[in-house]
């Protein structure tokens, strides 16, 4: 019994220590965004000899949105002779290919469509296949639901004049914010994650993350690290870490904003975050040790690289901590009433937060001058609890069913919700 109690206490204290580390990390990031020096070194490059760029749009059953992204890309301000748009239809069963072909006929020099009918499905496989034969210097990736503004390609390409930059990530801004409470909460979450978390990592020369869309990579850098890993569930995180370990940097450009659709139903959101968690944890298993041992990285890059890899491990750890605290209480070891512990925990998470959490979101709303939507912040508690449970569930299923039972992890597509119009009724358009 003593051994069990000791084990539970150790678990609890490790848990508390880790949560404290992440809490400090978030507080430092937030204070940096509010009061620190902001780094946007490439933002002012507006005139240059722009390199050859390929914009890849992976599509799988995207008939609701694909025309909008192609229309937007046809309007971008980038030298026409140096830009090629490659929408890739990955075995769609709807009208996606027909719509892509129609746009390609309308813009034959700009749009060069590809259609996949075989091979491994999924975004990583699409990117791998396209990159292998690409003659452009820079590869920019947009998901089909994204709506890039006119100047976005130049802004995303500008950092690549820096020879050390391997990948660039822009800011994702939800377009369907007003649909329901979920979309409004996801809008808060995205704001905290990009406006504060990613930009602070850029400011502090840590490890900004390439997020797979509204971003891109240098083709020679992708090839130097061995190309896209088509078995990776989070090909973006996977690439971020391989570039980092090879010596390239990933740059976050907070002013490169692009609209996206966020899930409008909780089931879809749960699937999305479980997929992210599995992919991210897959990268964590793969690269944590290498990041720890990488002598060419600065100490701060190593620490942040590890903490970034661990963000989706925190939820199961937290659940474990709650279980340990409860068990200790049942065994008569708890020093405070469990109800009070729960209340304190709730208040703590509400006030200070976890993940790209409450404090960061509040700062992001302040920086975005979105004061009124900040009032919704307490309701983000629902999103927080849902994320904790689903990320923990993803951890358990990945461990028990995927890893131990050898089940293959597979790629899933996020549903689209755009109904009418062409997505151009947004403030940026």
């Amino acid at each position, binding site marked *: 019994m003593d051994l069990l109690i000791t084990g539970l206490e150790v678990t609890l204290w490790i848990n508390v220590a880790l949560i404290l580390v992440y809490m400090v990390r978030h507080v430092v990031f937030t204070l940096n965004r509010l009061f620190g020096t902001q780094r946007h070194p490439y933002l002012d490059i507006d005139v240059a000899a722009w390199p050859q760029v390929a914009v890849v749009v992976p599509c799988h059953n995207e008939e609701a949105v694909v025309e909008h992204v192609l229309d937007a890309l046809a309007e971008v301000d980038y030298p026409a002779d140096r830009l090629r748009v490659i929408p890739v239809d990955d075995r769609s069963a709807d009208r996606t290919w027909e719509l892509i072909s129609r746009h390609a006929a309308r813009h034959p020099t700009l749009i060069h469509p590809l259609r996949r009918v075989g091979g491994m499905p999924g975004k990583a496989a699409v990117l791998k296949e396209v990159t292998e034969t690409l003659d452009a210097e820079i590869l920019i990736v947009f998901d089909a639901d994204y709506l890039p503004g006119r100047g976005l390609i130049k802004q995303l390409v500008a950092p690549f004049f820096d020879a050390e930059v391997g990948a660039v990530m822009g800011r994702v801004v939800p377009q369907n914010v007003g649909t329901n409470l979920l979309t409004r909460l996801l809008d808060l979450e995205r704001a905290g994650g990009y406006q504060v978390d990613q930009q602070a990592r850029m400011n502090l020369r840590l490890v900004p993350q390439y997020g797979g869309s509204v971003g891109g990579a*240098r083709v020679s850098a992708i090839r130097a690290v061995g190309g896209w890993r088509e078995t990776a569930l989070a090909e973006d995180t996977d690439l971020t870490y391989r570039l980092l370990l090879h010596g390239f940097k990933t740059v976050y450009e907070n002013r490169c904003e*692009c609209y996206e659709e966020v899930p409008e139903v909780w089931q879809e959101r749960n699937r999305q975050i479980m997929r992210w968690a599995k992919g991210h944890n897959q990268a964590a298993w793969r690269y944590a040790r290498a990041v720890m041992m990488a002598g060419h990285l600065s100490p701060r890059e190593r620490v942040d690289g590890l903490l970034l890899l661990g963000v989706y491990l925190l939820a199961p750890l937290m659940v474990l901590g709650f279980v340990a605290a409860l068990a200790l209480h049942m065994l008569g070891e708890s020093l405070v009433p469990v109800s009070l512990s729960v*209340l304190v925990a709730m208040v703590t998470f509400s006030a200070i937060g976890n993940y790209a959490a409450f404090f960061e979101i509040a700062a992001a709303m302040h920086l975005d001058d*979105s004061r009124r939507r900040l009032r919704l912040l307490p309701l983000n508690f629902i999103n927080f609890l849902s994320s904790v449970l689903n990320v923990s569930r993803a951890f358990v299923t990945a461990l028990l069913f995927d890893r131990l039972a050898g089940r293959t992890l597979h790629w899933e597509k996020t549903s689209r919700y755009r109904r009418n119009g062409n997505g151009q009724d947004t*403030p940026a358009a």
Partner: protein
Amino acid sequence: MIWHLLFWTVAACVWLAPFLPALREWRFRTDVGPLRVSRAQDVNIRHFAHSFFDQVSAFFDTRGIDTRAPPPPYNGEFRPGEEFAFLGAVTRPHWPAALRRSRRVPYVVIATGDLLLEGGMIYQQEIYCGGQLYAGADSTFRAVYAGTDLVLGARCVVARWLHSQGHVHIGPDCRIFGRISSGSSITLGEGTRFERLNATLIRTAADEAPAIGVAPAPPDTVWSPPESLRQLDATTVLAATSLQLPGAHTIGVAVVCQGSLDIGDGARVTRAVKAYERLVIGRGCSVQGALVCAGPIVIAAGAEIAGPVVSETSVDIAAGVTIGTPAAPTTVTAPDIRIAAGSQCSGTLWARRQGRVAVAERK
């Protein structure tokens, strides 16, 4: 018991209080639009000038003003609360005595022809000039649009922006806050301070051409990166410490240096270079790629740079330096930029904090 109850009541109130505005916002949806992300005014240096031009054009149309007709009687409100003075084709405006005494012109000034403005006046609103505009010394402007050339005398101040479809000549010791753009070229006088410039050609005035005296690199002396450097990709190497690259050599790889990087005189660099601490480009060097540095960048006399120049600290451009060409313009950006007389850039010169044209030493 009562204390317990009180404690839990207070705790519940504290916990629930933030939910009241949250529930209200959820119910009444006062802020549900997507975040505005338009950056037109940031990205396009001519945004304000073009907007003003559009306003003036609309003004002519809506007022039915015949731009060829003699002035006055045209005056009134240009925008709510802002009066205009329409000068037509009058070249030398004669302001009322009260304005001349106060040295302040509170109107949006609109002239369809050339304009010759006496010095020492403060123009509190925008000036639109359909032709050439000459402004005397010590004038202060809010913003100026000129249809053709624009010449500012010494020690003038521009608060917001200045645009000319033709050539812009800024006299010595002027202070230009905001943006200067030109359809052809900009010439900056000595001691002038600036923020953001854009033109096919941006020159700093010099009495005489600077002597450089460095021969270009012979084609057969190619620098080979030492094996200790990390190979990032086929054309990029990474040095973990400071590095000196030899002068009069061709450097055919992109070099990233985690310390300071010093490129010797007359070197020819065919790709980009980057340093973390300090980047020095020697006399007469040519760099076909970009220069990037977290610390200061120093470009010595006679160097030719084709790619963008980006520093997070400062850029110091010596005499005789050429950055970009009219056919291939580029960007120079840093918080502080110091540019010596006798240099030229093509494209954008953007000093986030302050740009300054150095004063040449007199013999």
